[in-house]
Protein backbone atom coordinates (compact mmCIF):
# COMPACT_ATOMS: atom_id res chain seq x y z
CA UNK A 1 0.00 0.00 0.00
CA UNK A 2 1.48 3.28 -1.12
CA UNK A 3 1.08 6.30 1.13
CA UNK A 4 1.85 9.68 -0.35
CA UNK A 5 2.59 11.37 2.93
CA UNK A 6 4.68 8.58 4.35
CA UNK A 7 6.55 8.28 1.08
CA UNK A 8 7.69 11.83 1.68
CA UNK A 9 9.29 10.75 4.93
CA UNK A 10 10.96 7.83 3.23
CA UNK A 11 12.84 10.33 1.13
CA UNK A 12 14.07 11.86 4.34
CA UNK A 13 15.07 8.43 5.52
CA UNK A 14 17.06 7.83 2.36
CA UNK A 15 19.01 10.93 3.25
CA UNK A 16 19.50 9.48 6.70
CA UNK A 17 21.55 6.63 5.32
CA UNK A 18 24.15 9.07 4.00
CA UNK A 19 26.40 11.18 6.23
CA UNK A 20 24.47 14.03 7.79
CA UNK A 21 26.31 17.05 6.37
CA UNK A 22 25.74 16.29 2.66
CA UNK A 23 22.02 15.77 3.15
CA UNK A 24 21.45 18.58 5.57
CA UNK A 25 19.98 21.10 3.13
CA UNK A 26 17.61 18.56 1.62
CA UNK A 27 16.52 17.46 5.07
CA UNK A 28 15.71 20.98 6.14
CA UNK A 29 13.77 21.65 2.96
CA UNK A 30 11.70 18.51 3.36
CA UNK A 31 11.18 19.10 7.04
CA UNK A 32 10.12 22.70 6.61
CA UNK A 33 7.67 21.67 3.93
CA UNK A 34 6.11 19.05 6.14
CA UNK A 35 5.96 21.42 9.08
CA UNK A 36 3.84 24.02 7.32
CA UNK A 37 0.45 23.31 8.97
CA UNK A 38 1.19 25.35 12.10
CA UNK A 39 -2.29 25.66 13.60
CA UNK A 40 -2.00 22.61 15.82
CA UNK A 41 1.70 23.09 16.41
CA UNK A 42 1.46 26.62 17.73
CA UNK A 43 -0.32 25.95 21.05
CA UNK A 44 1.81 22.92 21.81
CA UNK A 45 5.04 24.71 21.16
CA UNK A 46 3.90 27.69 23.17
CA UNK A 47 2.90 25.56 26.12
CA UNK A 48 6.10 23.55 25.93
CA UNK A 49 8.23 26.63 25.50
CA UNK A 50 11.74 27.00 24.22
CA UNK A 51 11.24 25.21 20.93
CA UNK A 52 12.12 26.52 17.51
CA UNK A 53 9.09 26.76 15.27
CA UNK A 54 10.56 27.43 11.84
CA UNK A 55 13.67 25.31 11.80
CA UNK A 56 13.72 21.56 12.33
CA UNK A 57 17.05 20.62 13.81
CA UNK A 58 18.86 17.49 12.81
CA UNK A 59 18.42 16.05 16.28
CA UNK A 60 14.67 16.48 16.14
CA UNK A 61 14.34 13.74 13.55
CA UNK A 62 15.42 11.08 16.04
CA UNK A 63 14.81 10.12 19.62
CA UNK A 64 17.61 11.23 21.95
CA UNK A 65 20.24 8.54 21.67
CA UNK A 66 20.86 8.51 25.43
CA UNK A 67 17.24 7.53 26.01
CA UNK A 68 17.45 4.86 23.32
CA UNK A 69 20.59 3.39 24.88
CA UNK A 70 19.03 3.36 28.34
CA UNK A 71 16.06 1.38 27.04
CA UNK A 72 18.34 -1.03 25.17
CA UNK A 73 20.31 -1.71 28.34
CA UNK A 74 17.15 -2.64 30.23
CA UNK A 75 16.84 -5.80 28.14
CA UNK A 76 20.52 -6.63 27.63
CA UNK A 77 22.70 -8.47 30.13
CA UNK A 78 24.97 -6.30 32.24
CA UNK A 79 28.16 -7.30 30.49
CA UNK A 80 26.82 -6.55 27.02
CA UNK A 81 28.43 -3.78 25.02
CA UNK A 82 26.75 -1.81 22.25
CA UNK A 83 28.65 -0.51 19.26
CA UNK A 84 28.03 3.08 18.22
CA UNK A 85 26.73 2.15 14.78
CA UNK A 86 24.17 -0.24 16.25
CA UNK A 87 22.98 2.53 18.59
CA UNK A 88 22.51 4.84 15.63
CA UNK A 89 20.79 2.15 13.56
CA UNK A 90 18.21 1.47 16.25
CA UNK A 91 17.78 5.21 16.78
CA UNK A 92 16.88 5.55 13.11
CA UNK A 93 14.64 2.49 13.25
CA UNK A 94 12.56 4.10 16.02
CA UNK A 95 11.80 7.17 13.92
CA UNK A 96 10.90 4.91 11.03
CA UNK A 97 8.61 2.93 13.34
CA UNK A 98 6.81 6.08 14.52
CA UNK A 99 6.24 7.23 10.94
CA UNK A 100 5.13 3.76 9.87
CA UNK A 101 2.50 3.47 12.61
CA UNK A 102 1.43 7.10 12.23
CA UNK A 103 0.92 6.71 8.49
CA UNK A 104 -1.34 3.71 8.96
CA UNK A 105 -3.27 5.32 11.81
CA UNK A 106 -3.78 8.47 9.77
CA UNK A 107 -5.13 6.51 6.82
CA UNK A 108 -7.78 5.03 9.07
CA UNK A 109 -8.64 8.51 10.32
CA UNK A 110 -9.09 9.79 6.82
CA UNK A 111 -11.23 6.84 5.76
CA UNK A 112 -13.54 7.58 8.66
CA UNK A 113 -13.39 11.29 7.88
CA UNK A 114 -11.84 12.23 11.20
CA UNK A 115 -9.03 14.73 11.64
CA UNK A 116 -7.51 13.70 14.96
CA UNK A 117 -5.34 10.62 15.39
CA UNK A 118 -6.37 8.92 18.62
CA UNK A 119 -4.73 6.31 20.81
CA UNK A 120 -7.20 3.75 19.45
CA UNK A 121 -6.03 4.55 15.92
CA UNK A 122 -2.46 3.90 17.00
CA UNK A 123 -3.43 0.55 18.53
CA UNK A 124 -5.40 -0.39 15.42
CA UNK A 125 -2.46 0.48 13.19
CA UNK A 126 -0.06 -1.64 15.23
CA UNK A 127 -2.41 -4.58 15.10
CA UNK A 128 -2.85 -4.26 11.37
CA UNK A 129 0.89 -3.98 10.79
CA UNK A 130 1.70 -7.15 12.69
CA UNK A 131 2.66 -5.88 16.13
CA UNK A 132 0.01 -7.97 17.84
CA UNK A 133 2.22 -8.77 20.79
CA UNK A 134 2.33 -5.09 21.68
CA UNK A 135 -1.45 -4.59 21.83
CA UNK A 136 -2.26 -6.14 25.18
CA UNK A 137 0.38 -4.40 27.32
CA UNK A 138 -0.31 -1.11 25.57
CA UNK A 139 -4.04 -1.47 26.18
CA UNK A 140 -3.31 -1.98 29.85
CA UNK A 141 -1.03 1.03 29.82
CA UNK A 142 -3.65 3.22 28.19
CA UNK A 143 -6.30 1.99 30.60
CA UNK A 144 -4.19 2.84 33.62
CA UNK A 145 -3.23 6.18 32.14
CA UNK A 146 -6.88 7.12 31.75
CA UNK A 147 -7.64 5.97 35.27
CA UNK A 148 -4.95 8.29 36.54
CA UNK A 149 -6.20 11.19 34.45
CA UNK A 150 -9.73 10.68 35.68
CA UNK A 151 -8.70 10.52 39.33
CA UNK A 152 -6.37 13.49 39.46
CA UNK A 153 -8.25 16.04 37.42
CA UNK A 154 -6.98 19.46 38.47
CA UNK A 155 -4.00 17.96 40.26
CA UNK A 156 -2.40 17.08 36.93
CA UNK A 157 0.16 19.41 35.46
CA UNK A 158 -1.12 22.43 33.57
CA UNK A 159 0.12 21.00 30.31
CA UNK A 160 -1.78 17.78 30.76
CA UNK A 161 -4.94 19.60 31.73
CA UNK A 162 -4.82 21.86 28.70
CA UNK A 163 -4.13 18.92 26.43
CA UNK A 164 -7.05 17.04 27.90
CA UNK A 165 -9.27 20.04 27.39
CA UNK A 166 -8.11 20.20 23.81
CA UNK A 167 -9.09 16.59 23.39
CA UNK A 168 -12.53 17.29 24.82
CA UNK A 169 -13.03 20.26 22.53
CA UNK A 170 -12.05 18.34 19.42
CA UNK A 171 -14.07 15.23 20.12
CA UNK A 172 -16.82 16.44 22.48
CA UNK A 173 -19.32 13.60 22.09
CA UNK A 174 -16.97 10.65 22.12
CA UNK A 175 -14.77 12.08 24.79
CA UNK A 176 -17.63 13.04 27.07
CA UNK A 177 -19.08 9.57 26.71
CA UNK A 178 -15.75 7.95 27.43
CA UNK A 179 -14.88 9.93 30.51
CA UNK A 180 -18.39 10.44 31.87
CA UNK A 181 -19.29 6.76 31.86
CA UNK A 182 -15.81 5.47 32.68
CA UNK A 183 -15.37 4.97 28.98
CA UNK A 184 -11.97 3.26 29.10
CA UNK A 185 -13.45 -0.10 30.08
CA UNK A 186 -16.17 -0.47 27.43
CA UNK A 187 -13.99 1.41 24.98
CA UNK A 188 -11.18 -1.06 25.41
CA UNK A 189 -13.55 -3.99 25.12
CA UNK A 190 -15.04 -2.71 21.90
CA UNK A 191 -11.58 -1.88 20.65
CA UNK A 192 -10.36 -5.37 21.39
CA UNK A 193 -13.38 -6.89 19.70
CA UNK A 194 -12.77 -4.70 16.68
CA UNK A 195 -9.09 -5.59 16.62
CA UNK A 196 -9.93 -9.26 16.88
CA UNK A 197 -12.17 -8.88 13.86
CA UNK A 198 -9.40 -7.13 12.00
CA UNK A 199 -6.92 -9.77 13.01
CA UNK A 200 -9.25 -12.53 11.91
CA UNK A 201 -9.61 -10.89 8.55
CA UNK A 202 -6.02 -9.91 7.87
CA UNK A 203 -4.01 -12.53 9.74
CA UNK A 204 -5.37 -16.01 9.23
CA UNK A 205 -2.53 -17.52 11.21
CA UNK A 206 -3.16 -15.47 14.32
CA UNK A 207 -4.77 -18.22 16.39
CA UNK A 208 -1.53 -19.38 18.09
CA UNK A 209 -0.88 -15.79 19.01
CA UNK A 210 -4.28 -15.59 20.64
CA UNK A 211 -3.43 -18.61 22.74
CA UNK A 212 -0.12 -17.10 23.72
CA UNK A 213 -1.84 -13.85 24.59
CA UNK A 214 -4.35 -15.79 26.65
CA UNK A 215 -1.55 -17.43 28.55
CA UNK A 216 0.06 -14.08 29.17
CA UNK A 217 -3.24 -12.66 30.35
CA UNK A 218 -3.62 -15.58 32.72
CA UNK A 219 -0.21 -14.82 34.17
CA UNK A 220 -1.33 -11.29 34.95
CA UNK A 221 -4.77 -12.42 36.06
CA UNK A 222 -4.70 -10.11 39.05
CA UNK A 223 -6.59 -7.58 36.96
CA UNK A 224 -10.30 -8.27 36.80
CA UNK A 225 -10.84 -6.14 33.70
CA UNK A 226 -8.50 -8.31 31.68
CA UNK A 227 -10.79 -11.33 31.60
CA UNK A 228 -13.62 -9.68 29.64
CA UNK A 229 -10.97 -8.69 27.14
CA UNK A 230 -9.95 -12.31 26.81
CA UNK A 231 -13.53 -13.30 26.17
CA UNK A 232 -13.77 -10.80 23.37
CA UNK A 233 -10.55 -12.05 21.87
CA UNK A 234 -11.82 -15.61 21.74
Amino acid at each position, binding site marked *: MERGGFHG*YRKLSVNNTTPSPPGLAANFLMAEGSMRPPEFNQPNKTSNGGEEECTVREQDRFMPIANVIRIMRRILPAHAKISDDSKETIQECVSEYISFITGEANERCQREQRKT*ITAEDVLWAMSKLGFDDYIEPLTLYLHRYRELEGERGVSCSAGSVSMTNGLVVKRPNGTMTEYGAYGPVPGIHMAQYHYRHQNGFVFSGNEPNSKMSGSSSGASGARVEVFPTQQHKY
Partner: protein
Amino acid sequence: MENNNGNNQLPPKGNEQLKSFWSKEMEGNLDFKNHDLPITRIKKIMKYDPDVTMIASEAPILLSKACEMFIMDLTMRSWLHAQESKRVTLQKSNVDAAVAQTVIFDFLLDDDIEVKRESVAAAADPVAMPPIDDGELPPGMVIGTPVCCSLGIHQPQPQMQAWPGAWTSVSGEEEEARGKKGGDDGN
Protein backbone atom coordinates in the same frame (compact mmCIF):
# COMPACT_ATOMS: atom_id res chain seq x y z
CA MET B 1 29.21 -25.93 12.83
CA GLU B 2 31.79 -25.52 15.56
CA ASN B 3 30.27 -22.12 16.30
CA ASN B 4 27.23 -23.84 17.71
CA ASN B 5 28.96 -26.23 20.06
CA GLY B 6 28.62 -23.81 22.94
CA ASN B 7 25.06 -22.84 22.13
CA ASN B 8 22.17 -24.05 24.19
CA GLN B 9 19.90 -26.40 22.28
CA LEU B 10 16.72 -25.07 23.83
CA PRO B 11 14.29 -23.00 21.73
CA PRO B 12 14.59 -19.23 22.06
CA LYS B 13 12.63 -17.73 24.91
CA GLY B 14 13.41 -14.13 24.15
CA ASN B 15 9.91 -13.30 23.05
CA GLU B 16 8.31 -15.00 26.03
CA GLN B 17 10.71 -13.24 28.34
CA LEU B 18 9.87 -9.92 26.73
CA LYS B 19 6.14 -10.52 27.11
CA SER B 20 6.64 -11.54 30.71
CA PHE B 21 8.71 -8.41 31.24
CA TRP B 22 5.99 -6.16 29.86
CA SER B 23 3.27 -7.98 31.74
CA LYS B 24 5.06 -7.25 35.01
CA GLU B 25 5.91 -3.73 33.91
CA MET B 26 2.28 -2.83 33.31
CA GLU B 27 1.29 -4.16 36.72
CA GLY B 28 3.90 -2.10 38.52
CA ASN B 29 4.03 1.60 39.29
CA LEU B 30 3.73 3.42 36.00
CA ASP B 31 5.14 6.90 35.83
CA PHE B 32 3.03 8.87 33.37
CA LYS B 33 4.79 12.15 33.91
CA ASN B 34 8.35 11.19 33.09
CA HIS B 35 8.39 9.25 29.85
CA ASP B 36 11.51 7.45 28.74
CA LEU B 37 11.07 9.07 25.34
CA PRO B 38 10.17 12.74 24.91
CA ILE B 39 6.56 13.21 23.83
CA THR B 40 7.28 16.43 21.99
CA ARG B 41 9.87 14.73 19.82
CA ILE B 42 7.43 11.93 18.99
CA LYS B 43 4.86 14.50 17.96
CA LYS B 44 7.32 16.20 15.66
CA ILE B 45 8.18 12.93 13.97
CA MET B 46 4.49 12.09 13.61
CA LYS B 47 3.94 15.44 11.93
CA TYR B 48 6.60 14.93 9.29
CA ASP B 49 3.76 13.26 7.41
CA PRO B 50 2.03 16.24 5.75
CA ASP B 51 -1.28 14.38 5.79
CA VAL B 52 -1.26 14.26 9.58
CA THR B 53 -3.27 17.20 10.89
CA MET B 54 -4.29 16.77 14.52
CA ILE B 55 -3.03 14.34 17.14
CA ALA B 56 -4.88 13.52 20.36
CA SER B 57 -2.72 13.89 23.43
CA GLU B 58 -2.93 10.20 24.27
CA ALA B 59 -1.55 9.05 20.92
CA PRO B 60 2.10 10.14 21.34
CA ILE B 61 2.00 9.00 24.97
CA LEU B 62 0.93 5.56 23.83
CA LEU B 63 3.51 5.62 21.04
CA SER B 64 6.16 6.48 23.60
CA LYS B 65 5.53 3.19 25.37
CA ALA B 66 5.20 1.35 22.05
CA CYS B 67 8.62 2.65 21.03
CA GLU B 68 10.10 1.35 24.26
CA MET B 69 8.70 -2.07 23.42
CA PHE B 70 9.98 -1.79 19.86
CA ILE B 71 13.48 -0.85 20.99
CA MET B 72 13.64 -3.71 23.47
CA ASP B 73 12.17 -6.15 20.97
CA LEU B 74 14.67 -5.22 18.27
CA THR B 75 17.55 -5.10 20.75
CA MET B 76 16.78 -8.55 22.09
CA ARG B 77 16.54 -10.09 18.64
CA SER B 78 19.79 -8.39 17.67
CA TRP B 79 21.48 -9.66 20.81
CA LEU B 80 20.47 -13.21 19.96
CA HIS B 81 22.42 -12.82 16.72
CA ALA B 82 25.40 -11.43 18.59
CA GLN B 83 25.24 -14.47 20.87
CA GLU B 84 25.35 -16.81 17.91
CA SER B 85 28.63 -15.16 16.97
CA LYS B 86 29.86 -15.49 20.56
CA ARG B 87 30.16 -11.76 21.01
CA VAL B 88 29.57 -9.45 23.94
CA THR B 89 29.32 -6.38 21.71
CA LEU B 90 26.13 -5.69 19.79
CA GLN B 91 27.08 -4.82 16.22
CA LYS B 92 25.16 -3.06 13.48
CA SER B 93 25.31 -6.28 11.48
CA ASN B 94 23.42 -8.00 14.29
CA VAL B 95 20.70 -5.36 14.09
CA ASP B 96 20.56 -5.67 10.31
CA ALA B 97 20.27 -9.44 10.57
CA ALA B 98 17.49 -9.20 13.15
CA VAL B 99 15.57 -6.78 10.93
CA ALA B 100 16.02 -8.96 7.86
CA GLN B 101 14.84 -12.04 9.71
CA THR B 102 11.75 -10.57 11.38
CA VAL B 103 8.68 -10.09 9.21
CA ILE B 104 7.13 -7.30 11.28
CA PHE B 105 10.33 -5.30 10.80
CA ASP B 106 10.11 -5.46 7.00
CA PHE B 107 9.16 -1.80 6.87
CA LEU B 108 12.73 -1.03 7.89
CA LEU B 109 14.19 -2.83 4.88
CA ASP B 110 13.11 -0.14 2.42
CA ASP B 111 15.35 2.54 3.84
CA ASP B 112 17.82 1.68 6.55
CA ILE B 113 18.71 -1.83 5.51
CA GLU B 114 18.38 -1.73 1.75
CA VAL B 115 21.82 -0.26 1.21
CA LYS B 116 23.18 -2.93 3.52
CA ARG B 117 21.36 -5.83 1.91
CA GLU B 118 24.54 -7.47 0.67
CA SER B 119 26.26 -7.07 4.00
CA VAL B 120 23.20 -8.51 5.68
CA ALA B 121 23.37 -11.55 3.43
CA ALA B 122 27.09 -11.82 4.08
CA ALA B 123 26.58 -11.41 7.80
CA ALA B 124 23.86 -14.03 7.74
CA ASP B 125 25.93 -16.68 5.96
CA PRO B 126 28.20 -17.72 8.83
CA VAL B 127 25.40 -17.52 11.38
CA ALA B 128 23.07 -20.41 12.08
CA MET B 129 19.54 -19.11 11.66
CA PRO B 130 16.84 -20.27 14.06
CA PRO B 131 14.22 -22.46 12.39
CA ILE B 132 10.82 -20.98 11.57
CA ASP B 133 8.50 -23.01 13.74
CA ASP B 134 5.03 -21.98 14.90
CA GLY B 135 5.61 -23.46 18.28
CA GLU B 136 8.88 -21.66 18.85
CA LEU B 137 8.62 -18.27 17.21
CA PRO B 138 6.03 -15.55 17.65
CA PRO B 139 3.12 -16.08 15.25
CA GLY B 140 3.67 -12.65 13.82
CA MET B 141 6.84 -13.89 12.24
CA VAL B 142 5.07 -16.52 10.13
CA ILE B 143 2.22 -14.38 8.85
CA GLY B 144 2.17 -13.96 5.09
CA THR B 145 5.01 -14.70 2.71
CA PRO B 146 8.40 -13.71 4.11
CA VAL B 147 9.97 -10.95 2.08
CA CYS B 148 13.35 -12.15 3.28
CA CYS B 149 13.12 -15.46 1.45
CA SER B 150 15.05 -13.92 -1.42
CA LEU B 151 17.96 -13.55 0.97
CA GLY B 152 17.86 -17.22 1.79
CA ILE B 153 17.76 -16.41 5.48
CA HIS B 154 14.84 -18.58 6.55
CA GLN B 155 16.81 -21.80 6.66
CA PRO B 156 15.81 -24.43 9.21
CA GLN B 157 18.64 -25.20 11.58
CA PRO B 158 18.48 -27.54 14.57
CA GLN B 159 20.76 -25.42 16.75
CA MET B 160 18.90 -22.96 18.94
CA GLN B 161 20.00 -20.64 21.67
CA ALA B 162 18.11 -20.01 24.89
CA TRP B 163 18.12 -16.50 26.20
CA PRO B 164 19.03 -17.30 29.83
CA GLY B 165 21.62 -19.86 28.79
CA ALA B 166 23.20 -17.42 26.39
CA TRP B 167 24.23 -15.18 29.24
CA THR B 168 26.02 -17.98 31.03
CA SER B 169 27.83 -19.25 27.97
CA VAL B 170 29.32 -15.88 27.10
CA SER B 171 30.21 -14.52 30.52
CA GLY B 172 33.55 -16.32 30.45
CA GLU B 173 34.62 -15.07 27.05
CA GLU B 174 35.52 -11.49 27.75
CA GLU B 175 38.34 -11.53 25.24
CA GLU B 176 35.66 -11.26 22.57
CA ALA B 177 34.82 -7.83 23.94
CA ARG B 178 36.62 -6.13 21.11
CA GLY B 179 33.98 -6.82 18.50
CA LYS B 180 34.74 -6.52 14.84
CA LYS B 181 32.64 -4.36 12.59
CA GLY B 182 30.86 -6.18 9.83
CA GLY B 183 30.20 -9.89 9.53
CA ASP B 184 32.39 -12.40 11.29
CA ASP B 185 33.66 -14.76 8.60
CA GLY B 186 33.82 -18.25 10.02
CA ASN B 187 35.27 -18.82 13.47
